[in-house]
């Protein structure tokens, strides 16, 4: 227990600095504003699919659009986390302090995750709105919405881990951003699509689909928070965090 507190207290110094940097460099504000305005535009204003036109009091469209925006937004938030430190050499300052690589990574990870959660938080207003638009008032699938929010938060947590990893393997922020975006999109969307290739159908399509994030996110969207899905999300996060650690320590060799 003591060692856990020890790890956390060193991690907190990094966490605090990252949060400070997010909001002193405007990255934080820009990320939140872009996320909310894009989302608001798609859900309420742009024609055809928006909630008001659809005539149903559901947030399904919100939970369909949000992951796609996060695919772009999260790599943009995380692209600087290690790439900039490697580029300016400040990684040498961090690595020569009495902190472990894992503490550095987790500090940065949780800082980025908290920023994304702050961006997601105001969307509860959408839920409140839909709740009151429903006839009779409150006639919405609360279980489904809560499950979807859990799914979205897990999805964001995976995307942040991917983004941090991509940032740790390059000193160029643009490369980190593009790589992160591609990887997030592949894991979220492409793998699920690949499973539907005719050559896989009836054979390994189910297994391939399970590898992607999409099927687990959809499963949570039904309002069932299954331990298998949670374990899947946590394993992917752990995989990318440990890969980041390997990438960082390879610089010592």
């Amino acid at each position, binding site marked *: 227990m003591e060692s856990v507190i020890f790890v956390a207290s060193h991690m*907190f*110094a990094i966490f605090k*600095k990252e949060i400070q940097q997010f909001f002193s460099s405007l990255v934080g504000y820009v990320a939140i504003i872009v996320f909310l305005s894009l989302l608001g535009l798609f859900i309420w204003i742009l024609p055809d699919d928006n909630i008001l036109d659809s005539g149903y009091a559901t947030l399904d469209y919100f939970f369909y659009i949000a992951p796609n925006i996060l695919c772009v937004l999260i790599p943009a938030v995380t692209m600087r986390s290690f790439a900039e430190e490697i580029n300016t050499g*400040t990684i040498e300052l961090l690595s020569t302090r*009495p902190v472990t690589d894992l503490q550095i990574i987790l500090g940065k990870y949780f800082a980025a995750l908290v920023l994304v959660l702050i961006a997601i938080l105001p969307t509860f207003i959408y839920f409140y709105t839909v709740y009151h638009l429903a006839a009779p008032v409150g006639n919405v699938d609360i279980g489904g919405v809560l499950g979807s929010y859990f799914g979205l938060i897990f999805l964001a947590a995976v995307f942040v881990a991917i983004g941090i990893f991509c940032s740790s393997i390059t000193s160029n922020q643009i490369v980190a951003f593009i790589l992160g975006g591609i990887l997030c999109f592949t894991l979220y969307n492409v793998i699920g699509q690949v499973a539907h290739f005719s050559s896989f159908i009836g054979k390994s399509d189910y297994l391939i689909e399970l590898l992607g994030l999409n099927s687990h996110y959809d499963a949570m969207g039904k309002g069932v928070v299954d331990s298998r899905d949670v374990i899947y999300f946590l394993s992917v996060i752990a995989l990318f965090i440990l890969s980041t650690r390997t990438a960082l320590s390879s610089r010592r060799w």
Partner: protein
Amino acid sequence: MSVKVTNLTKIYGAQHAVDGISFEVNKGEVLGFLGPNGAGKSTTMKMLTCFVSQTSGSALVCGHDIATEPLEVTKKIGYLPESNPLYYDMYIREYLEFMAGLHKLGKITKQRIDEMIEVTGLTAERKKKVGQLSKGYKQRVGLAQAMLHNPEVLILDEPTSGLDPNQLVEIRSLIKQLGKDKTVIFSSHIMQEVQAVADRVIIINKGKIVADDSTEKLQSRLGNEMVVTAEFKQEVETGLLSRISGIKAVTKQADGRWSFVADGDKDIREDIFNFAKEKNLTLLHLNKEEYSLEEVFKQLTR
């Protein structure tokens, strides 16, 4: 023994950046690390601070092994990396607070930061962002950061690069003062600096130690010849000057001064003075040259 290095080696691909070096540094000693560019100074320092790991060999910092106890080692070391990387978008105090957080200074944080800002002469600039500072002041922030947690061993990689002459003097005297109760290892390729600050010099070339001695001893190693420079107001011929007793050779330098090499270790200044008096020459300048580390360095790293 503060730092003990045994056969430390770092190989990058086929290049032996550091090739089996061994040395020891005692508490309260200021060690100058001298060498041409690419000699392996920075790599050695990066290994001692656990930033890169060694290929073979070992090193102990305050009794802790750099390979197996990096957390203990980094607690004892204050490090100023070569290019002095800093977070440019942070305020000085904010940056130092962050560093203090990584060292878990706790309650003494504010007091230590105030002390460091004063010691490094940052008081007038303390409200600025790091990125707004001039190079010399950035260097001071780097030094403040290195000393913040009151480490037993200070490792400074080219601490005076980019400083103006006044700042040079200040930082040098700061290093010297620090060396009284700490172990300081600093690298430089400026000989005068090492001469002025260090008690001991290690000259490193192509990854190997070519000299490890006190500054005085290194100079006297080559200093058994006595060289005197003199300047006369009048034009003098070489032939006339070579007749002065006790002189082995005399050459005219580009700046019009004469350089005399003594035969044996006799002080020839007296002879030159008497010669000038005898010939009614006006002596404008007379100086006994000391072999500087620069020449030692040139000879050893050739």
